[in-house]
């Protein structure tokens, strides 16, 4: 279960990530975890994988909880949010990013697992609110097992350089070849294609090693990969203003393009054409695995296993923004109907609870979540009040329909 809040400029970066991933695939996994919110996608031929991880500090407010399932043999299996969205549903929401950045005050994304919906709300000035409800499919997100650090060749470049190189190639060319030696770097049209089409222009660009921020080549390599995904990655990198790192090895082994800002980490893994001797007609599929149990997976960078926690509440603001139990929603409608006396009573109770909660961040919220049918006293006063006000003024129903 996820809840996060972003400001206008953060939405722009988020939107650019969605746009970059849309070039890879038609489906997107929303995968929140303790490390942050990850957007993952894989293309239909399993030859390209993209993942953009937004760390919790990227958001103004980030809250994630996994449902803890009590199984019979007393092993708590933590179920992550298995949320797969269609790109057609989510991409139009993040259109016109420049105007979004200027006009919105806040963007809230939260999930309602009981209804399999992701809700994206944009709060504009003058109290205007735009809400999108997107249904998601339950599907386990895929992850690529790829360790960047063992690659023999590593490059770090400014996105501008890649953008200049991309201009050279026509959109009809599907594949490009990257050839490196310890001294220089060359991006050229794939030999395969230019041999077949006698009308195609063969282009190549040589760049000296001193134009790179980091240039470490273990061995002379020539790899060929699909060009289409590269363009998507470039637009995202221009939004983050961070250099792109390229990790690769011998032909056949995937290539990783990585952008690592303090707040956002993006990884795009592309399959490459295998070598002459073991030539496959198409790029080999990436090694993918599904997340059965979080604890079992070895993630790309982090060695440690992830253990689910019952609840997490990470917030930038000083004010205690409590977690948001599912029951909250049903309770609010009850409060609305009750009228003022009930509210007062609730207020009284709540203030006490809040003070307690401040000291024990982990324990109290945990108990709150699991207890079902708790009265409105468990709600945070401030949060509840603002919700009620909004619902009364704007006539928006917050309850479950």
């Amino acid at each position, binding site marked *: 279960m996820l809840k996060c809040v972003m400001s206008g400029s953060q939405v722009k970066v988020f939107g650019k990530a969605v746009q970059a991933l849309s070039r890879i695939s038609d489906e997107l996994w929303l995968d929140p975890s303790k490390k942050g919110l990850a957007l993952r996608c894989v293309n239909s031929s399993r030859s390209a994988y993209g993942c953009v991880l937004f760390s919790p500090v990227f958001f103004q407010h980030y809250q994630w909880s996994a449902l803890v399932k009590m199984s019979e043999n007393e092993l708590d299996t933590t179920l992550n949010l298995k949320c797969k969205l269609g790109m057609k549903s989510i991409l139009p929401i993040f259109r016109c990013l420049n105007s979004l950045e200027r006009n919105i005050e806040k963007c809230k994304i939260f999930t309602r697992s009981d209804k399999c919906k992701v809700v994206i709300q944009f709060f504009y000035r003058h109290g205007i609110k735009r809400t999108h409800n997107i249904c998601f499919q339950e599907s386990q997100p895929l992850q690529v097992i790829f360790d960047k650090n063992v690659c023999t060749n590593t490059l770090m470049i400014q996105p501008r350089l890649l953008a200049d190189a991309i*201009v*050279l190639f*026509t959109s009809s060319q599907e594949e490009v070849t990257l050839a490196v030696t310890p001294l220089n770097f060359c991006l050229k049209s794939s030999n395969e294609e*230019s*041999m077949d089409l*006698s*009308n*195609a*222009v*063969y*282009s*190549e*660009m*040589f*760049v*000296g*090693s*001193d*134009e790179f921020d980091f240039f470490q080549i273990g061995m002379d390599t020539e790899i060929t990969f699909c060009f289409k995904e590269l363009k998507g990655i470039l637009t995202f990198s221009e939004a983050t203003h961070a250099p792109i790192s390229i990790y690769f090895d011998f032909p056949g082994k995937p290539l990783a393009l990585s952008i690592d800002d303090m707040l956002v980490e993006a990884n795009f893994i592309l399959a490459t054409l295998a070598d002459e001797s073991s030539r496959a007609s198409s790029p080999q599929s990436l090694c993918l695995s599904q997340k059965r149990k979080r604890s079992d997976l070895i993630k790309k960078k982090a060695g440690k296993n992830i253990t689910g926690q019952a609840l997490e509440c990470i917030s930038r603001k000083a004010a205690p923004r409590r977690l948001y139990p599912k029951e909250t929603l049903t309770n609010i409608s009850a409060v609305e109907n009750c009228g003022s006396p009930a509210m007062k009573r609730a207020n009284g109770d709540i203030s006490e609870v809040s003070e307690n909660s401040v000291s024990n961040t982990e324990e109290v919220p945990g108990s709150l979540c699991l207890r079902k049918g708790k009265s409105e006293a468990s709600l945070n006063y401030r949060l509840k009040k603002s919700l009620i006000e909004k619902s009364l003024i704007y006539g928006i129903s917050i309850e479950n329909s």
Partner: protein
Amino acid sequence: MRFRAKIVDGACLNHFTRISNMIAKLAKTCTLRISPDKLNFILCDKLANGGVSMWCELEQENFFNEFQMEGVSAENNEIYLELTSENLSRALKTAQNARALKIKLTNKHFPCLTVSVELLSMSSSSRIVTHDIPIKVIPRKLWKDLQEPVVPDPDVSIYLPVLKTMKSVVEKMKNISNHLVIEANLDGELNLKIETELVCVTTHFKDLGNPPLASESTHQDRNMEHMAEVHIDIRKLLQFLAGQQVNPTKALCMHRICRSGKKTLLFRVETNETSKVSSVLGDETIFL
């Protein structure tokens, strides 16, 4: 056959790129003719008389710092190549802000025109970009179809108004009719006219000036105000006008009636006397 040329000057490179863009807009394939002192872009359209529809001439000295060529043979010291015009213009597009541009004829798996650009970059080392554009060598027996159109003495020749203005007028007229009548006289007046059943629209241009005629004597007794007219396909005219990216110093239109009664219209655009583009449009008089 050999050909090597190099451009170093930015302005020349810019001009060459714009001409190449103009050619790309006019036709998909074009012929490049290389001779010791000139470079020509030739477009062959299927005209009724089978002639050249566009002829562009560039004085090589005005563009290239180095220019070496060796034709097919000693007597025929020329090279005719056929290429996709868009390939060349796209290759040149990457050459903006280049330190140097080299073009040469090579044979890598198949005959190519290799465009090699040395780009300036922020660091000390420069980037080298190479494009191999596939070409077809045109055999000598087909050369006769690709000669410069003979410009016969025109009946009327007139300087054109600002091409941008003319283009916007013709574009609006395109929506009404497919055929345009161009009338011009020796008094500096040009009319663009379209006629349909419902409406007739004419745009008049005055005081345009006429270039001096070659043979003055035969035309002395001619009525200066007599309008010579030609019917042409509006889309072809628009194609020619749309391609004009280079700001010309001189643009003129020549009208000629042959003995057979066939009328031809020739447009010529010159820039600083370094490049000349001539486009021939045949008459398509419609008998109603």
